[in-house]
């Protein structure tokens, strides 16, 4: 597979929260606004790209019996780096994301990509894969966050989008709203891909 293919598959084919249905804990918890979703996505992307690169470079050097332990150490180091950087330069975002930054360590997407992809492929392909999946994840979280923010607080990126008398559905920024929003998005994505497949089949026959 070409590098481009490795990159683009993360954007649609295996876009993490909707296709792989991985990394749902932060997906549900931090997407109360578009900005939070995007921040979380970017932090995850950073960790994902660098952990993929390092795992791929070290894949011949790490004995397979201790690979999970080695991967976790690598991932955890990058997470701590992200955490320190966020505290230093984007403190308000750090406060908003709180406990979910350290929890990137146990985000299944990152370990999943290390195990399923970077542990077997070359460094360039792994970076492309990490970038693709990371950006796919960031876009998903941002869209989900925007959806919940618009309905739940009547704003987008902190700006008002509705008329002044609009009463926001506070339900949407609470935990149950996250499940509803995720369900709606999953249904939508499945519907679109079903239609696409149908069209492809019709074109063939």
């Amino acid at each position: 597979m070409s590098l481009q293919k490795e990159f683009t598959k993360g954007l649609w084919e295996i876009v993490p929260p909707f296709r792989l249905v991985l990394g749902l804990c932060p997906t549900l918890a931090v997407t109360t606004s578009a900005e939070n979703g995007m921040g979380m996505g970017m932090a995850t992307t950073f960790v994902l790209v660098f952990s993929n690169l390092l795992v791929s470079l070290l894949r011949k050097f790490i004995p397979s019996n201790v690979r999970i332990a080695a991967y976790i150490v690598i991932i955890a180091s990058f997470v701590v780096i992200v955490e320190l950087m966020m505290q230093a330069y984007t403190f308000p975002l750090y406060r908003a994301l709180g406990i979910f930054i350290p929890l990137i360590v146990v985000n299944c997407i990152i370990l999943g990509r290390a195990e399923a992809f970077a542990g077997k492929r070359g460094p360039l392909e792994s970076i492309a894969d990490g970038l693709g999946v990371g950006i796919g994840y960031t876009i998903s979280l941002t869209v989900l966050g925007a959806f919940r923010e618009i309905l739940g607080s009547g704003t987008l990126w902190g700006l008002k989008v509705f008329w002044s008398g609009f009463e926001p559905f506070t339900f949407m920024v609470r935990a149950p709203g996250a499940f509803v929003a995720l369900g709606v998005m999953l249904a939508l994505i499945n519907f679109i891909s079903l239609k696409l497949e149908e069209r492809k089949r019709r074109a063939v026959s």
Partner: protein
Amino acid sequence: MREIIRMVLVLTVICAASGFSLALVRGFTKAPIDYSRLKFVKEPAVKAVLAGYQNDPIKDRLVIPVGKDKKGKPMNLIVFPAKKGGKTFAVAFEASGAGYHGDIGVMVGLDPAQKKLTGISIVSHTETPGLGARIVEPKFTGAFKGKPTDKQLAVGDISALSGATMSTKGVVAAVNNARSLFDKYRDKMLQ
């Protein structure tokens, strides 16, 4: 056996490299982290008590050692100077006094030239909600503005909150503590 040694060795090398790089990152992010902590946690209080400054009080903060705590650890007082034209005309720092329920942390702004309080702001407290907790209201804290600092402030100098005499006393005590801290470290604060 060789396999086991290899596993141990590889993991050790990875962990050591990780520890080393984290120590490096920690080293160069320490100063910005301290800065942004103060900026986002303390700056609202500093802004509330100081006015008309042209500098960044958080950046120009002074750290003054003020003895040791009970465990022998050195304690520091962080002073935020307000400057105009490069000269300090007022300072703000935190002091505490015993309220009805635990210590009340108060950010106190002092103007040494006019010997007046430029304002106070409650930073932390655990007073009773609805009663003592009303000390955070601007109506109460505003009464301290412009009070003289050349003599002890008495509870009678400001109108106490009804039903919250102890909390009022705590805030007054904190302000008086700030006064004595200022007298003690005046030269260091105004350098």
